[in-house]
């Protein structure tokens, strides 16, 4: 089973919830944890993995053999992202615009293009002290494209049978979040009870509904704002699975890098209960599809 933890709004507690869910279940489940927030990855601060495996995350970009190139301009024509341009007597490549689709290479009539990897980030993995199989992607500073790294991270290490995968999503509701949610069996949406939280929750619901995956809501910092979440529940019929109260003690503990269930051990039972509910919802959904 794959559970993606997402939110729309940033800073609502995705990583807090994803890491606490992983730690709560670590004794009874074989867990694979993917930190897909490759622009601002933070889950390692709470799970403390020892990274033992590293690999570049790269996009395949064109390298043009000037001796063979006839300057016909076919590659410039087929590229949809303006990553190639004919300037004077050469074809220029703009690596940061290239999506690595391969189209220019295949369409070159004289086979003057070969693909070379252009690293835009890295993938890292290792075990946490609780034996959670942790991996993450990290976007290199100044590189624009995070989505290809998420795609590679998800394919990098195949899940073992019966393994529970928890994906910690980036904020927002654009392509990087789509890539994280693709193939998930359940979307766990973390929000805070404020107008900002509700607005952005409605954005991400659009994606969840297009994928047609079951979802549940976690209300974090319950008590700080107004109760706008009940209205959301009434409209979309998505259950609220967990409420985490606001407290300065929790805020201070998380700031120090302590996980939520270490700060509030009582919450472990609630996370386990939530997981039971998620399992039931996923099972019911699968049976409904059959």
């Amino acid at each position: 089973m794959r559970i993606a933890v997402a939110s729309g709004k940033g800073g609502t507690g995705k990583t807090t919830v994803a890491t606490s869910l992983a730690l709560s279940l670590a004794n009874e489940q074989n867990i694979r944890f993917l930190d897909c927030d490759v622009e601002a990855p933070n889950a390692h601060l709470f799970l403390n993995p020892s990274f033992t495996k590293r690999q570049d995350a790269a996009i395949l970009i064109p390298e043009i053999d000037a001796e063979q190139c006839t300057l016909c301009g076919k590659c410039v024509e087929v590229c949809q992202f303006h990553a190639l341009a004919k300037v004077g007597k050469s074809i220029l490549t703009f690596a940061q615009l290239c999506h690595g689709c391969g189209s220019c290479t295949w369409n070159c009539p004289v086979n003057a293009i070969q693909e070379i990897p252009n690293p835009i980030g890295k993938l890292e993995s290792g075990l946490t002290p609780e034996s959670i199989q942790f991996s993450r992607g990290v976007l290199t500073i100044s590189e624009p494209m995070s989505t290809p790294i998420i795609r590679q991270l998800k394919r990098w290490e195949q899940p073992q049978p019966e393994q529970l995968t928890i994906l910690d999503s980036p904020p927002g509701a654009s392509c990087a979040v789509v890539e994280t949610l693709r193939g998930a069996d359940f979307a766990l949406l973390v929000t805070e009870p404020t107008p900002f939280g509700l607005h952005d929750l409605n954005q991400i619901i659009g994606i969840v509904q297009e994928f047609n995956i079951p979802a549940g809501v976690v209300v974090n910092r319950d008590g700080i704002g107004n109760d706008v979440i009940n209205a959301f529940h009434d409209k979309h019929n998505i259950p609220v699975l967990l409420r985490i109260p606001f407290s300065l003690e929790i805020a201070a503990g998380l700031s120090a890098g302590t996980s939520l269930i270490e700060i509030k051990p009582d919450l472990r039972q609630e996370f386990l209960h939530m997981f039971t509910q998620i399992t039931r919802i996923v099972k019911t959904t699968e049976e409904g599809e059959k």
Partner: protein
Amino acid sequence: MLTPNSQAKQLILLSGKGGTGKTSLSAAFAHLSQKSGHPIPAIFVDADVDAANLGLVLQPDGAQQHEFWGGSIAEIDPENCIGCGRCEEVCRYDAALPTDEKHTLYEIDPLACDGCAACVYACPQDAINMTRQQEGLWFHSHAKYGDIFHAELFPGKENSGKLVTTIKQQARLAAEDNAIPLLIIDGPPGIGCPVISASAGADLALIVTEPSKAGIHDLKRIFETLRHFRIPALICINKADIYPQGVQEILRYADEQQSEVIAEIPFDASITHAMVQGQPVTVYAPHSPASRVIHDLWSTVVQRLNQTED
């Protein structure tokens, strides 16, 4: 100088980590820019287009609405498809898939399609066409304290960077036409494409961080990103009293990087209460501990903007 005669200065609020208070602070700046003894005409830009919240406080009227057309995606004409599967072979995004087990027809998953058109050129039947997508809306609105440019990216769409570039360009043109000297840009979280688009041409970045391990980790990433693009960056710490050790670490970091922490805003529930009321905190609770610090912060920011080169 922030005078109507010069090209508009661009102030951008960024954070790396989400939820540190960029939008609450942007809204307070919008208010303070018009309130103080010497009001500075300003245009506001909500550059966080996939979680656009500044409007929830500044209450824009949506006066001018425009369609945003982003890239194209592939579509297979089922009449001409012979089920050869070439599209699936060339697609690196798993977007071209057979519609049935016998592979008699293929179709494109619009959520997976990257718009590269590799399949269009590979299809022996010419059965695939690219169709442009409307990916969102953008607005030029009148709002409290001035005009605002904002947008809605439709859920799950690409090109948020391009949409950010669009509204920033429009805001700059409007500033030029009306001799407005300042753009206040509420930036997106992260360090990637939308952040790079939102920061292009900025005169000064204010990094809004929090004194947590995660906040500091991401502060460093956004700081390095801004340095790469040669944008001067100052730091302010929100919720500063929650974890004093974190504040010390940020002060040390700022020192090492020859940057500066120009404000420490205490944790203050009135910031959230103001958001619930749809008001800037400096309006909702002008004498709250947070509002007092934000007043001084705004004065410092104006002073620093005046020192940036024209």
